[in-house]
């Protein structure tokens, strides 16, 4: 009996062990799916587009040349006798095939320059888009010198939590002056202030690169005109008209094939369009706290106070759901390829930010097939906050570079960064690739793709979104600058600078409450934003707000107010 039992036990252990292993690997693959979706729909991959589309003009060359040619070797006194390898960590998929060969060719040229100037070579540690935030943080947590230069961001790559966790090195003024002199000189003092936590500088901001990542709806302007909106969509009500028309006139098209992840952008867009709310970045994904344009430093949460507006929102979204703007099972729709579909005219809208629109509105971009198929095609942008002229400029730490606290060669890392950001040769190589292969100048001095260029062959993958520099940027010939400049000018007329750059919230004491509020916000806003709630709009909003109160949203507001008072008063 005992022996047989033992045998069975062994067999069972094996099965249990196997099952456990199987389960483990399953869940790890499944982890990846959702984040992939998020990355395709939020800022992260949008910046992807942004990398290829340059931003607004600056009157550059003179100033640029001055700073870069100022001295022959700013590091004459620095001991660089030992050749070191600097690892640069960035979000983005590692290249393969032809792209890899191209990347290696670029790096070979770049490393030749770097070796000559600072006796260092650069290597890239790619954090692929699948599950990027977890992998990013895990790589940082290793702290064993695997990475030196870390591309980061206060609003989408946990720059502040990582600074607090001790993942980043404090950068003293002396260090910056000595090892990154050009960067130190070109970043104004007030911008360095915005990169401090507890009096220490942790981040080097990308503060000389114009881009707009405020969200809105990208839509077909030509179709909006057909729908009777002569000068396009300028309000949420116009959108309703637009959806209705598209549904009728183009019944084969899903107006907007959302994957259900846009709920937070939608509701914050609605609030931006119906109030002068200015949200604080970096507290939770929904950015549920902030002030108003008129009274920036009194913290409140419109999600609790703006009941009528939210009810109106809930009603409109129910209407959109009934019109059939998105698929019925939108909340389980993980297979959406809305943006690609938009480019070939199979969907009628996309919800994303201005940078994404600058790509989609450009007929010269060969991936935008709509312009080939339909000569009348035009793509417009309705930005959130248009009705109330409520637009906030991007925080300068939307892209920033940090040095890992585990880095063995922080000094040399800073020197390399200084070159990548300020040396014209390094900059062009690292951002655009090899001239004549990945890009070339046209007669107007704009950057265009050489003949025979394809993204698979010579596309750039370095994703240097942490130190782009308008002094060295060469505008892309592909972008529809007429439309883009017009919108940028409109923004410049109404924008306010991001007012809370200096505020790094201390959330330890309210972390549990924020986590629970996040969960409530997500659950209710998914249902409300896609019109999937049961009962009336009034009921669901009341229920949502009650839940928020029960979870302690007022305590969080009070705590943030106390921290605001300490900082700003």
């Amino acid at each position, binding site marked *: 009996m005992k022996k047989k039992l033992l045998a*069975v036990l062994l067999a069972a252990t094996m*099965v249990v062990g196997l099952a456990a292993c199987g389960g483990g690997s399953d869940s790890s693959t499944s*982890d990846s799916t*959702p984040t992939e979706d998020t990355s395709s729909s939020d800022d992260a991959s949008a910046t992807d587009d942004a990398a290829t589309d340059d931003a607004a003009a600056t009157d550059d060359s003179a100033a640029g040349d001055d700073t870069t040619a100022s001295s022959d070797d700013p590091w004459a006194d620095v001991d660089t006798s030992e050749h070191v390898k600097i690892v640069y960590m960035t979000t983005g998929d590692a290249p393969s095939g032809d792209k890899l060969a191209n990347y290696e060719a670029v790096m070979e040229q770049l490393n030749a320059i770097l070796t000559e100037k600072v006796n260092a070579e650069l290597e890239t540690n790619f954090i692929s888009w699948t599950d990027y935030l*977890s992998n990013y943080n895990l790589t940082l947590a290793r702290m064993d010198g695997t990475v030196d230069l870390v591309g980061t961001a206060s609003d989408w790559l946990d720059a502040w939590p990582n600074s607090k966790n001790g993942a980043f090195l404090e950068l003293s003024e002396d260090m910056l002056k000595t090892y990154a002199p050009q960067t130190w000189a070109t970043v104004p003092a007030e911008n360095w202030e915005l990169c401090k936590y507890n009096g220490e500088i942790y981040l080097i901001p990308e503060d000389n690169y114009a881009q707009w990542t405020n969200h809105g709806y990208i839509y077909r302007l030509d179709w909006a005109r057909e729908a009777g909106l002569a000068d396009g969509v300028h309000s949420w009500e116009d959108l309703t008209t637009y959806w209705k028309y598209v549904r009728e006139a183009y019944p084969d098209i899903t107006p907007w094939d959302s994957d259900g992840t846009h709920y937070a952008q939608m509701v914050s867009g609605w609030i931006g369009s119906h109030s002068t709310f200015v949200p604080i970045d970096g507290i939770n994904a929904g950015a549920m706290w902030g002030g108003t344009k008129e009274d920036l430093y009194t913290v409140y949460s419109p999600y609790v106070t703006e009941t009528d507006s939210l009810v109106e929102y809930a009603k409109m979204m129910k209407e959109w759901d009934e019109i059939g703007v998105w698929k*019925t099972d939108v909340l389980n729709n993980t*297979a959406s390829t809305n943006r690609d579909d938009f480019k070939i005219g199979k969907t009628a809208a996309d919800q994303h930010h201005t940078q994404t629109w600058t790509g989609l509105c450009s007929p010269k971009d060969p991936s935008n097939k709509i312009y080939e198929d339909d000569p009348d095609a035009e793509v417009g942008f309705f930005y959130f906050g248009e009705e109330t002229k409520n637009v906030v400029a991007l925080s300068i730490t939307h892209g920033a570079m940090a040095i890992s606290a585990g880095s063995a060669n922080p000094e040399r890392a800073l020197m390399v960064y200084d070159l990548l950001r300020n040396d014209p040769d390094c900059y062009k190589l690292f951002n655009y690739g090899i001239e004549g292969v990945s890009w070339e100048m046209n007669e107007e001095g704009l950057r265009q793709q050489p003949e025979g260029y394809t993204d698979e062959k010579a596309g750039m993958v370095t994703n240097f979104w942490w130190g782009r520099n308008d002094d060295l940027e060469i505008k892309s010939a592909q972008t529809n600058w007429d439309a883009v400049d017009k919108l940028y000018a409109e923004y410049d007329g109404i924008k306010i600078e991001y007012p809370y750059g200096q505020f790094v919230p201390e959330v330890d004491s309210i972390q*549990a409450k924020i986590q629970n509020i*996040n969960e409530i916000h*997500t659950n209710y806003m998914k249902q409300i934003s896609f019109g999937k709630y049961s009962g009336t709009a009034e009921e669901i909003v009341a229920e949502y707000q009650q839940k928020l109160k029960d979870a302690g949203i007022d305590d969080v507001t009070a705590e943030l107010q106390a921290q605001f008072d300490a900082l700003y008063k």
Partner: protein
Amino acid sequence: MKRKKNGEMTFIQKVIRYRVLLLMCLPAIVFFFLFNYVPLPGIYVAFVKYNYRDGIFGSKFVGLQNFEFLASSGKLLTLTRNTILYNIAFILLGNFLAVFVAILLNEMRSKWFKKVSQTLMFLPYFISQVLVGILVFNLLNYDTGFVNGILTSLGLERWQPYADPKVWPVLLVVIYLWQQTGYNSVVYFASIMGIDGEMMEAAKVDGANGFQRIRYIILPSLKPTIVILLLFALGGIVKGNFGLFYNIVGTNPILYETTDIIETYVYRATMTDFNFMTASAVGLYQSIVGFVIVMVVNYIVKKIEPDYSLF
């Protein structure tokens, strides 16, 4: 070699004597030691405010603060209940079905048919949960789903399971059984194979028919296996099947009421802020509850039938 009284060997003697057996155990021992015992002190991370630079043991001790979010969500009870109820359904129905299938396989006379059906039942186990999630969505979704395609072509009204929390307990259990039964039945099939052939012969000679042989020989012989597998499964009763739930239900809040388990909730809540501490706190909570359950059940089994208890 000198023996102790009544033939008992010293530890060293035993090691030498059973060296081959011990050597065979070694990989498993090393495995469990490395992956289950060495990391145990790391549990401490559930009680600190973790800082990369100071390491686990240098970080600030914060007591139970990391458990706070789970406790204060007001959902702990619902989540634990969902997790346990689903697991009970999985374990009981899963084992019942596995035994049933194993017996059926054993009774089959055509070897060819036996192999084919076994393979077919075995296959779903190897399909990734991600794919299962996609398959289910394509079967059940409202606009283009297979099921709804059939319903409409029959002139019936469309069915919208992704907006109806009530149907999911059934659906999830069915999907689980479809995936796991073939695999689980292997253990039972193996132990049926191990039943002494003479007993069967004797029963046949005594005139027992097929059902009687199952009732009086096969089932009683399977009892120890069933009990042990149940005990094993109970240890993990508070640990949800994340892959299954996450891939099939996704992040659709309409369905959470009946489908949210501890894993999926924690995943959503901590995904945004990459929180080692809270995740470890939850893991610890699950391990403790699981441990208590195993101890209690084992104690009960020992009272009733000491032979079947694990220890």
